[in-house]
């Protein structure tokens, strides 16, 4: 389920001042790269939605990493299961900031540790997608010929079914555990990165500096790793950020479908959402909080990713 968009023609957020010129830092060792990034940074700093996104992402990451320190209790302990009945799930009180969940664990603790799960799943699966996809894309674009055709056919096949179903099929083969989820979602992201890197390879292959480098006799590998990849870095990071948002949602979706980690001691927002359904009358917060957490986290990554894309896109200079 990609929520990705083609490059936007207008600002995502409100207006931002564009009056300061973007310094073309004269010629230096890094050549083109530096001013692009510095320019991007400056624009990001002034973009409210970028700031909002970054803040959310930062908060999420901090919570995820520091969960054991922030949480008052152990996750998934179900210590207070005696207080929970089918029609009553105790709400917030002095011992439990957000009350209990239906299994008798502290809801606040579960939410905090759920962030950790989402971060891990999201980062790992996106990383898998990125590494494998980039590898295929570079191979494809770099070598060309039948390798290119073959790889692109495989990518087409993977894209011929909706990514969620692809993830489901992979997860079904690998069994019901954490690894299968990460590999499955990673697999669904491979085509996106493959196409991106291949496109980047192809586009740059014709650019002046590459032709020049070739003419100068610089080895292909050096060109790829020294020039093409760094230039592809920007769009790749943008894509990875946006895909992270999708990954977080897809992890929850797979939990909803009953695939993926099933151990209730390991808190995961998607599963918390599923488990909250039949207690909705008694305790709507059990569903609302994890769902909101998923949405807000995905929002943060999306905002930041899009702002980043815009900041790196030379076309938005007006």
């Amino acid at each position, binding site marked *: 389920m990609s929520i990705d968009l083609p490059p936007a023609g207008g600002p995502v957020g409100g207006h931002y001042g564009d009056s300061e010129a973007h310094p073309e830092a004269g010629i230096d060792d890094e050549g083109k790269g530096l001013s692009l990034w510095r320019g991007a940074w400056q624009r990001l700093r002034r973009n409210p939605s970028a700031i909002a996104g970054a803040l959310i992402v930062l908060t999420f990451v901090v919570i995820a990493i520091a969960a054991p320190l922030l949480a008052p209790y152990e996750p998934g*302990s*179900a*210590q207070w*299961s*005696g207080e*929970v*009945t*089918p*029609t009553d799930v105790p709400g917030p009180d002095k011992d439990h900031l957000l009350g209990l969940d*239906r*299994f*008798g664990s502290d809801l606040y603790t579960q939410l905090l540790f759920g962030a950790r799960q989402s971060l891990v799943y999201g980062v790992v699966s996106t990383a898998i997608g990125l590494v494998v996809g980039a590898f295929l894309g570079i191979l494809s674009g770099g070598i060309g010929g039948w390798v290119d055709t073959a790889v692109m056919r495989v990518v087409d096949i993977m894209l011929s079914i909706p990514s969620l179903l692809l993830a489901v099929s992979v997860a079904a083969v690998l069994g*019901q555990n954490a690894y299968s989820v990460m590999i499955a979602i990673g697999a669904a992201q491979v085509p996106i990165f493959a196409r991106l890197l291949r496109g980047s390879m192809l586009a740059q292959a014709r650019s002046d500096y590459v032709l020049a480098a070739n003419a100068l006799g610089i080895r292909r590998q050096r060109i790829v790793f020294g020039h093409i990849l760094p230039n592809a870095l920007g769009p790749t990071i943008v894509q990875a950020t946006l895909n992270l948002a999708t990954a977080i949602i897809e992890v929850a979706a797979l939990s909803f479908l*009953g695939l993926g980690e*099933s*151990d*209730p*001691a390991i808190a995961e927002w998607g599963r918390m959402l599923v*488990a909250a*359904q*039949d*207690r*909705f*009358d*008694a305790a709507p917060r059990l569903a609302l909080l994890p769902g909101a957490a998923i949405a807000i986290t995905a929002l943060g990554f999306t905002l930041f990713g899009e702002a980043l894309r815009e900041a790196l896109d030379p076309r938005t200079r007006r």
Partner: protein
Amino acid sequence: MSIKTSRTRSLVTAVLATTALVLSACAESAREGNGGEGGSGGSTTFVFAGSAEPGALDPVFVSDGESFRVARQIFEGLVGTVPGTADPAPLLAEDWTVSEDGLTYDFNLKTGVKFHDGTDFNAEAVCANFERWYNLPESAQSDDLAYYYSVIFRGFATGPRTDAALYDSCTANGEDKVTIVLTAPFAGFISAMSLPAFSMQSPTALEKFQDDAAPDPRTTEYSTAQPTGTGPFTLGSWERGKQVTLEANPDYWGEKAMIDEAIVVAIEDPKARATALQNGEIDGFDLVGPADIEPLKEAGFQIVNREPFNVLYLGMNQKTEPLDDLKVRQAIAYAIDKQEVADASLPAGTKLASIFMPDTVNGYTEDVETYDYDPAMAEQLLEEAGAAGATIEFNYPTDISRPYMPSPEDTFNVIRSQLEAVGLKIKPVADVWDPDYLDKIQGTPNHGIHLLGWTGDYNDADNFLGVFFGAETMEWGFTNEELFSDLAAAKGIPTPEEQQPVYEQINKDVMEFLPGVPLAHPVPSLAFAENVKGYQQSPVQDEVWNVVTVE
């Protein structure tokens, strides 16, 4: 908003293309002329929601409750049940006698009964049915098809278990007397005949529409559109994915249905069933989720509790250490507070269990070792066994709700925290119910303690104890020759009266041996709208709707 007087071609094209795709799919124009009947006004309809679609309409080839729910309305067997209990009562057979050796059963049949296709129900038809089952081709004998015949009668005319076959012969004596001869005594025979799988089906209709040798006999015309029995309802239609429509049988021999039509829909989620009831879309449903019972009652709906005929237990696999040590098993039993388990995860009114069968079954006794909640004792026993702080795998199923186990995750969590409170370390292992969990628990030795249960099919202790402990199984992982032979012997006792003390003793022995901890007999419930009256619940789900009225 500026009105665009003409949409751009692109949008129109796209929309048209999609519409074309849609319209091209309905190549068949409306075959039916005018619309159907108005639905309301004049005829009464009873709409009931089950949890899944039936597998098939021929009860010989299915074993799921939803198929049986429909089968109970259309078919009847020789034996029925006393309303509200699991005890056998006359149905198509008015009475019967058993020979001393327990091998010969003489039935006197009801006269004047006709199948829905107009043919007579008589002794010849009875024998036609028994012979049909016995002679099912090998392709139909596997457990995912003729499950109940396989389990009760143990063997067929052909196939690997011919020698074990319980059925010997069937003789029709005139129109209304029939004699069945078995190869070995089976005290539960009469009770077993009340199962829907042994309903009397019209031989003529079977001949015409059924094909037992088909690659999948559940998809034949008989099994999907032409089930023909003697019951108070006939099949109106089965619209797959929508509903089963039953029509009242005007020629029924007994108490004719007071409703004109019954519709059975499938709604998987218990909460969605409750909502549909509250919205008035259905008149009743089965398997009420524990969280919905109170809210429905408060909103003025009727909750009908079924007399529990089940048991929920914590099984223990003695192939996995340290569960092979009796002290450890006892410790686990002492660590569990059954009342807390019931309060936190089972419906109100659930009875706690002291043995592996409910109190309505022949051979029930409470004079057994009970292991009442005593965490100190549990810790002590663990110390003695050298298993304090041991790690135990705890298997439980997800995404499932059974009548005996409405929310396994909740039950699991309560027990887990109780076991951890006495120092055990629990490693949770969750699996999807079907096929993973069942396969793992019953097909492999790779599991520790697990949650499972069983709803009885008919009133026979062997249907509980024999199923669980009759032989070595992967589920329990033990070999106890004495127990096995005791159960085998008990099974062969000719009458229930003689069986009773034997089973009582077996229950005592089982609780000494403690292969698992029986937890509770949860109360499954149904819910109905206020204007539905007369629904008769049955612990074995022998619920026929001819007595239901919808005001």
